[in-house]
Structure formats: structure tokens, C-alpha cells
């Protein structure tokens, strides 16, 4: 890079310390251009600003930065794919979309919803403070048009977009944002331990300052589309209010009707939407309890678009040349956990045995057979390689090595090990378990697979509160999941940063820590990572975490897989996230 020092100095002066740190990291070639752009959005750099940095660093192509564009980037909107969809977009029309049947327990409650189907419904009328950017990242396309951290990342200032109104015509104000954050704090909603109640200051109607309990370098992600429960609702909304009870929103679609028995919701275009009236007249979201039927209905074109399907079940759609497949980058994964403490003296309390299983895994076979290649091999830690702070050099990829596995088992005195692998009947898990069984048999291990209905699985074999169902009491401090199985497979959905995977699944006493992993070293590194707001600090901590998890192996992470959704080629402009949101404000049917 040939650096224009004068220009670089000029832009650095306009940035705060956290932003300067990022700019320097890029200028000194410590992070890639892509990482700079992704991280830049999170710490509040605008697209033109990042363009200036790129120019100063001698990188002429400054397009695609930020996410201020209309979203035709990498969110899966691929208008070139598909065969016959070459017509001109036409105004009007109804779009029929097949979605997951929403969890009845939450109803259309923006704060307490838990499933992809409900996320999709609620995010039509309500919007996030921080929207969807490009490349599976966040971007300033939500209700906040910009944000900046203070010098140490302990307070973040969000500037709201002008001219945003609720359905009754009253303006969106910072008071709405403050009330929303307070409600999130009340139920947790990803902000537990990050923000406390009453922490949002509102100096004026368009400015909200969120004061954190301690510095946090990823706060914008927690109030973005990637934390689905963070939808901004009116100040006088309350915890538990549902959309059908009180139709509201600032978004492109107005709630028209909802039938709970079929989980079918109809929306009509919001004429006063701040981003301009959508092209379509109506959108109908239809719930399907049976994913096979959802796929058949898409195949028969009774639907225009489909939310989430599996690679194998949906192969007919993947091979359909009139389908456009939407597959945003995703850190979805299945965790093969080992119980590192219980039963006492059990085989998996020995790290050599855990490593032996990890060496047996044929990761490429899983990627190929479970996902038909729509996945990437992972290296026994939950840090997705696309993250800015992923450390490539931390530890080499674990390759399959049966001899090494046998040797480790022999050292541990566990040749011919026998164990029962527990998993739920959720998509991919049972098939993966069968592959694990075969893979380990080659090293002489005798692993039997046991599959339980997913609704019972978590309470029986995984990790739950101390009093869940028939679960016995937990084993005390450091053993949050006293009754979790010695070895099992559990599902984790996409998160834009690994904070949840670290904090809940691996930290000592984490409420999802089915490995009962209790490592003072890990806890320390996690604290360092969360407190670090600079690129080097995050990368240093994460690199050590990668290596620690890889070596200690409290769980094996064989792959990250892509989310799959799609639409007919006669539709254009649909965007989606790996959490199931489908955005239709730019969608059109073609003639």
C-alpha cells in the first residue's frame, strides 16, 4: 500500500480513539480491507469516511463500504441467477412467502419471540436501531443513521434518522429507543450484563446515548437486526404486547391481519415509509409446520419465496433453475460437546480422549453429505473465519488422523471406549451423529447414537436450569449442567459475533455450558475479549481463545453451515439474514 500520509492524518483527526485504532490497524496492514470495512461499520465509521481511509491508504476501489447502498450486495439478492427472470419489475402485486410456523408460546411478541418464523413477521412492521449491511454485517440502514463510541467504548451515541413516523403519524424519538432498551434489559434479550435499566440518555429527540456497565466493542451488533429481540417499539408499548394486539411500527409494511391457527399474516404497503413506499401492494407470510410441505409448495410455485430449508430436503429447489437461492454468510453450527467433569472419572474428562474424537471426525464428509458443500470446515472453536478478529495463525486446522486418535486413546487407557451420543431430532443433528459414530468406529471407539424429540432433548440431556423437568440438581459451582450427557450434539444459530457462544456455552457456569467447562484461563481471555475495543486487543484475545479451545477441546466444532432460503426468479430485490429475516421493501415482481 502506498499511503497518502497527509490525507490519512486528516481523516484520523476526525475519528475518536477506537476508530483511530482501527484505521491504524488497516494502514499498517494488520487487518484486511474486508475486515476493516466490517469492523468500521460496527465502530460507527460512515461509508464516505471509510472511502477516504481507503483512498489515503492507496486503495482506490472504495465501493461496497459501509452498507449505505440499497442492499444489492451480498445479502443473497442475486438477480443474475435463475433463468427466466429477466422481465422488468412491475409495480404492485402480492407476494406469498412460506415461513416457519411461529412458536405459539410467544405469539407476535417482539420482545419475547424465539423462532425464525416470528422474527420474520415482526420485522416487517417494526425496525431495528441498526440495520442489515452488506456481507452479512450490520449497516446504517435501520432507524439510526449513524453511531459513535466514546473514547473507551463505554458509551455509544446513536443519531436517529429524520422523518421516521409511527403509524399514527407521530415521530419516532429517542424516548422510544430508551424505553425499548429498558424493556430489553428487563427480560435479558442479549443485553444482560451489558446495559442496566435507565442507562439511556436522551439529550434531544434524535440522539440516544447508551451508557454501558463496562466497555464493549460490539454494542451496535446487540441493538441490530442480528439480535432479533431488539426491534424498536413505541415508548408506551409494554413487555408482552403483541403486534396483532396493537398494530404499530415504523417499517415498510402495515399489519393487516393475522390468523393464529394457520400462522398466516397479511401486510400492506406503508405509504408513508421513510424509505419510500414499497413496490409491492401486499405481502402474505404463511406458516408451515411441516418443512417438507413448505418445500413442495415452493416447488409447485404456490409460494413466491421460502424461508429456510435444508440442503438435502430442499435439493429439488437447489436444482431448480428458476429458483434464486439466498444464502447469506452464517456462523450456524452444531456443537459436539464433551462433558469435561461429569461423570467423575468418565472418559471425556480426559482431554486426550476428547482430542481423539476430534481427530476422528471427517469434517469434509459432513460438509459434503449433510450440506452438499454449503458449509465450511471448522477448527473446534466457534469463531467464524469471516470475523475481523479471527486469527488465522492461531492454530493449524485439525485434519483427520486415525492413528493419532488411536495413540491418544491408548495413552489415556481408553481403547475400545464405549459411549452413548445424545442428540435431538432437529435438522442435521441426527445425521451428523451417525457420521460421528462411523468416524469414531475406525479408531476402535464404540459410540451409539440416541435421538430424542427436540422438545424433550434440551431438558433431558443438554443443559438447563437446575429445576427443569426431571433434571436432577446441578453439581454445584463450576458444574452448571450436572445432568448433561457425557457426549452430545446441540444446535447453535447464527450470531454476528461469538459473544453468546463464549459467554453462555463455554464460560464457567454459563447457562448453556453442557460441557461443564470450567477454565479460569478461558474466563480471563473472554473478559479480555469483551473489554477490548481495539482490533489488536480483540484479535489477541480471540487468537488465544481459538488455540485454547482447540487444544482443550471441551467441544468439537466440525463445521459452520450456510443458511438457505430462496425465491422464484420472477421476483427481485428480496434480502435476507441467516436469522430468517426477509426484507421486502425493495422487492418487485417482474412482468
Amino acid at each position, binding site marked *: 500500500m502506498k499511503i497518502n500520509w497527509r490525507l490519512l492524518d486528516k481523516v484520523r483527526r476526525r475519528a475518536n480513539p477506537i476508530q483511530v485504532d482501527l484505521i491504524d490497524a488497516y494502514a499498517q496492514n494488520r487487518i484486511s480491507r474486508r475486515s476493516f470495512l466490517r469492523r468500521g461499520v460496527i465502530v460507527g465509521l460512515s461509508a464516505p469516511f471509510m472511502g477516504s481511509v481507503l483512498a489515503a491508504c492507496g486503495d482506490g476501489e472504495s465501493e461496497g463500504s459501509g452498507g449505505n447502498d440499497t442492499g444489492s450486495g451480498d445479502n443473497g439478492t442475486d438477480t443474475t441467477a435463475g433463468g427466466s427472470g429477466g422481465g422488468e419489475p412491475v409495480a404492485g402485486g402480492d407476494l406469498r412467502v412460506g415461513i416457519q410456523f411461529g412458536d*405459539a*408460546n410467544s*405469539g407476535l411478541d417482539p420482545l419475547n419471540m424465539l423462532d425464525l418464523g416470528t422474527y420474520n413477521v415482526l420485522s416487517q412492521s417494526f425496525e431495528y436501531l441498526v440495520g442489515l449491511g452488506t456481507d452479512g454485517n450490520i449497516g446504517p440502514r435501520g432507524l439510526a443513521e449513524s453511531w459513535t463510541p466514546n473514547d473507551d467504548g463505554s458509551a455509544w451515541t446513536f443519531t436517529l434518522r429524520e422523518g421516521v413516523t409511527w403509524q399514527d403519524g407521530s415521530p419516532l424519538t429517542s424516548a422510544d429507543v430508551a424505553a425499548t432498551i429498558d424493556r430489553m434489559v428487563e427480560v435479558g434479550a442479549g443485553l444482560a450484563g451489558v446495559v442496566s435499566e435507565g442507562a439511556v440518555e436522551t439529550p434531544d429527540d434524535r440522539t440516544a446515548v447508551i451508557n454501558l456497565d463496562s466497555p464493549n466493542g460490539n454494542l451496535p451488533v446487540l441493538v441490530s437486526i442480528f439480535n432479533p429481540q431488539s426491534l424498536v417499539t413505541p415508548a408506551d408499548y409494554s413487555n408482552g404486547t403483541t403486534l396483532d394486539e396493537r398494530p404499530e411500527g415504523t417499517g415498510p409494511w402495515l399489519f393487516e391481519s393475522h390468523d393464529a391457527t394457520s400462522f398466516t399474516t397479511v401486510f400492506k404497503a406503508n405509504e408513508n415509509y421513510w424509505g419510500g413506499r414499497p413496490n409491492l401492494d401486499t405481502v402474505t407470510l404463511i406458516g408451515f409446520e411441516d418443512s417438507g410441505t413448505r418445500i413442495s409448495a415452493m416447488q*409447485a410455485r404456490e409460494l413466491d419465496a421460502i424461508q429456510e430449508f435444508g440442503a438435502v430436503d430442499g435439493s429439488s429447489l437447489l436444482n431448480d433453475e428458476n429458483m434464486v437461492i439466498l444464502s447469506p454468510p452464517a456462523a450456524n453450527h452444531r456443537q459436539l460437546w464433551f462433558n469435561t467433569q461429569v461423570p467423575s472419572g468418565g472418559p471425556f474428562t480426559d482431554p486426550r480422549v476428547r482430542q481423539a474424537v476430534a481427530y476422528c471426525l471427517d469434517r469434509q464428509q459432513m460438509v459434503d453429505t449433510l450440506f452438499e458443500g454449503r458449509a465450511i470446515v471448522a477448527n473446534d472453536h466457534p469463531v467464524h473465519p469471516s470475523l475481523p478478529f479471527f486469527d488465522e495463525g492461531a492454530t493449524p486446522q485439525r485434519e483427520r488422523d486415525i492413528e493419532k486418535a488411536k495413540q491418544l486413546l491408548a495413552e489415556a487407557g481408553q481403547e475400545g471406549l464405549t459411549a452413548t451420543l445424545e442428540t435431538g431430532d432437529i435438522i442435521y443433528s441426527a445425521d451428523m451423529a451417525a457420521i460421528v459414530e462411523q468416524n469414531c468406529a475406525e479408531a476402535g471407539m464404540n459410540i451409539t447414537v440416541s435421538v430424542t424429540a427436540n422438545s424433550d432433548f434440551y431438558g433431558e440431556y443438554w443443559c438447563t436450569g437446575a429445576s*427443569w423437568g426431571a433434571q436432577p440438581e446441578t453439581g454445584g459451582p463450576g458444574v452448571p449442567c450436572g445432568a448433561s450427557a457425557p457426549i452430545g450434539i446441540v444446535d447453535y444459530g447464527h450470531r454476528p459475533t461469538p459473544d453468546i457462544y463464549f459467554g453462555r456455552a463455554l464460560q464457567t457456569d454459563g447457562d448453556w455450558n453442557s460441557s461443564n467447562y470450567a477454565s479460569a484461563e478461558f474466563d480471563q481471555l473472554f473478559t479480555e475479549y469483551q473489554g477490548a475495543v481495539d482490533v489488536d486487543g480483540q484479535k489477541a484475545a480471540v487468537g488465544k481463545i481459538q488455540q485454547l479451545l482447540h487444544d482443550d477441546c471441551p467441544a468439537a466444532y466440525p463445521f459452520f453451515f450456510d443458511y438457505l432460503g430462496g425465491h422464484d426468479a420472477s421476483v427481485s430485490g428480496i434480502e435476507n439474514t441467516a436469522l430468517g429475516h426477509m426484507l421486502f421493501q425493495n422487492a418487485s415482481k417482474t412482468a
Partner: protein
Amino acid sequence: MGRFIVRRLLLSILTLAIILVLVTLIPNIAPGDPARKIAGGTASPERLQAVTESLGLDKSVGEQLVDVASDTAQFDFGMSFTRPTETVTGLVTTSLWNSTKLVVFSLFLVLPLSIAGGVYAAYKRDTWIDRLIVNVGVALASVPEFVVGVLFLALLAVPISFFKVVASPPPGAGIFTQLQYMLLPALTVVTVYFGYIARITRAGTITALSADYTRTAFMKGLSTGKVFRKHVLRNSLLPTVAVVGTQLGYLFGGMVGLELIYNYPGLGRLIFDAVDSADYPTLRGGVLSVAIIYMLATLGADLLIAWMNPRARLSISEGS
């Protein structure tokens, strides 16, 4: 006759009361804690307690029974546990109406077809056509409805746009569009019930055909058609009516597989989901409505049989 109906209705109320007690007891005997399911696996103890109280599950079984009985007597089924904005009455009414449409349409197809088949098979007894009807019927009935449903989806609905994957029509659809959407699930019901009803009808018809009164009718020179209309059918259809009456309850509440496959929001799915999500008020409302349908259907079948068969009528009016 009047006494008969009153007595039957009183018996029905007793049966309904027993069902109500059983359904009310379920939360207390089923594994797992409904409040835990509804509040979520990671809810705090305070929230769990609040949910338990809001569901009335902190009360004793006796108190719960009294509450439910008095609410039910006032036709107040309360709100759904899991969909707090929906009344049970609303959910059950919507689903019941959907199921009614599908059941009526299915019966409209399967009854004439299977009765005609059964009567014809009896008339052509022991010929190839008889064997064909009986064996095809048995073969079809032995395949579970959800298997037939999936086959129809793959073979008819996906390739041919006239047949629909999703059985619920778009809002505001006319009667013929609605029937078009419901055609595949209705045809699935036909495949399941054709053999069953045809065989019952065939057996009844064979008995009636060999009866003395039929022989007399033929001997006094009545045409075949007239003998069937005046003498045979009235008697041969008695078992058929009884069987269809008892199957109605299942058709309304038991077609979960079919409703899932065709994404049709019927009563079966409502009840199934209510069990799954521990939504006990909805479960209560759903099960009670199926029980009521079952009772009305069997009562209707008995009255129909009485009307068709003078001997049955006699025993009913004697009130024995």
C-alpha cells in the same frame, strides 16, 4: 322418542363432564411443567412463579376443577395459555369451521362412491368386479393417510398446478376455488375410507339380499331398482350409518397427519399443538368440541337408524 333423545342428551352431558375432569387433570399428571415450557427454559424463578400463578397452576386440583367447571358451564373457555391474545373459543371456532368444510367435502365424495361400490359388489357377489372393489379398498385403506398424502403431493400437487399443496385457499376465494384447494386432502380421505365403508355396505347388502322380505319382493314382480330402493338399501345401510357416525369424531379431531402435510389449520392440528405446547385451555376446548361432535354424530346416526328401521324405532320408543 322424545324420552329417548332427552335420556341420550343427559348421558352425553355426564360423559362430557367426565371428559372435562380428565382433561383438567392432565397438567397435573403429565410430565414436565407447563409454566416452565411457556416461560422458557432460562426464565428466572420469579418469572416462573408469575407464569404459574397466571395459569392458575398454583391452585389445588379441586380448585382447578371447580374453576373449569363453572367457566365451562358459562361457555367461557378462557384465553389460550400460549397465545395470550387469542380466546380458546375463537381458536376452536376457526379450526372447527375449517375441519367441517374438509369433512363435509370428503364425505360428499366418499359416501356415494363407497356405498355404490359396496352395493354393486354385493349385487355382483363373487365375480371379479366384487373382488376388485374389495381388494382395492383393503389395499388403499391399509396405507396410512399421511403416506397417501405425501404421495399425492409428490405425484399430483407439485407437477400439476390444478392440484394444490396448501389446502387453505386464499382469503375471499369462491366455493369452487375452495373445493379445488381441498381436493387432495379430501381424495386422501376417500382412499382411506372407501374400502372400509364399501365392505361394511357390501356385508349389509348381502344380508339384506338374502333376507326373506327381499325374496318376497322379487317374487311379487318388483323391478331390481325398486327392490333395492324400497327394501334392500333401507336395511343394508344400517351398519354403514352406524360406522360413519362413529368415525366422524375421528375425522374432525384425528387427521393431524393430513392437516400437517397439506398445511391445513384444522381441529386435529389445533389439539395436537395444544398438547405439544402445554396449552391446556385450548386442549380442553378442542377435546370437548370433538367429544360433542362425536356424541351428536352417534345420536344422529341412532335417530337415522331408527327412522330407517322400524324395529329399532320400536325399541327406542319403548324406552328400553
